[in-house]
């Protein structure tokens, strides 16, 4: 097979990074954190809204493929909104649900109770107070149960670490 090699010139991004001045990594990260912290409430509202959509009763006669796509979109949006705020368990739960919905047959037959279980688990994870006694154990138990569901329903899928 023919291979054509294009030697890269130094990118403008590299030139900008190498230019003297700017801010230190520590300052950059502190500023980014401050900016993101200001968006946390909005992120939590979006997460709750999407968990609500996953728990809501479906519109009657909605085609299975459309229902799968809507649930996949809601679960993806949970990951998007939770991503910068170290809500890793929530992201793992939402990723597991995305894996399951992605593997579901488009013509029907998906056990929707699994989606409900995941959504309820996400709701619970979101409501747990970080430093309250028993929270860590509860998180571990929830994540272990979800991991078990994923293993049973999707034995060949690469599992997200719990």
């Amino acid at each position, binding site marked *: 097979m023919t291979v054509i090699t294009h*030697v890269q010139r130094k990118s403008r991004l590299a030139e900008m990074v190498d230019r003297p001045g700017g801010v230190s990594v520590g300052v950059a990260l502190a500023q980014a954190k401050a900016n993101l912290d200001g968006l946390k409430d909005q992120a939590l509202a979006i997460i709750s809204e999407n968990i609500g959509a996953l728990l809501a009763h479906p519109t009657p006669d909605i085609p299975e493929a459309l229902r799968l796509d809507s649930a996949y979109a809601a679960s993806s949006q949970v990951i998007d909104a939770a991503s*910068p705020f170290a809500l890793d368990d929530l992201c793992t739960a939402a990723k597991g649900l995305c894996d399951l919905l992605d593997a579901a047959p488009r013509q029907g037959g998906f056990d929707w109770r699994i989606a409900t279980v995941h959504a309820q688990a996400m709701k619970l994870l979101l409501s747990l107070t970080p430093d309250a006694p028993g929270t860590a154990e509860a998180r571990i138990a929830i994540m272990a149960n979800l991991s078990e569901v994923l293993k049973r329903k999707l034995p060949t899928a690469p599992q997200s670490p719990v």
Partner: protein
Amino acid sequence: MVVDDSPFSLTLTTGALAGFGIRPTFTVGRGAEARRILQEKPVDLLLVDTDMPDIDGFELVRWLRRSGPNPNAFTPVIMTASHIRRGRVTEARDCGANFVVTKPFSAAMLLERILWVARDSRPFLEVGDYLGPDRRFRHDDYDGEERRADMIRKKTMEFA
């Protein structure tokens, strides 16, 4: 340039970038609009979401890499994904992005990836349908002073 169909994700990414002192010139919600701008204006870094309704991230990057003599054809690209469908993993590998980052990722990781792609000096290869950075990485140890931030951090953590 930041391309994401989710307005909130766009806000999150631009918020983190603003903290780094990077002000995106273009924040775009549609792949088609991004393509139009990429044909006309110089772009230093492209941060693009994989899953978008019209032209998705994979298609946009594949088009970009083959858009020569457009100077943006070699622009560093970081793709962000909340989840990659199983059937699209190959596309993620083959689209020609410098880096695909799956969420969750922190602001620190985003900064690390930006610095990484800035220093990415891999040649671009055109092999069959693929056009993008050489996907082969050396796995043997580098014989010299370690200057990669992530490797230094990893080693420091190992000793801590």
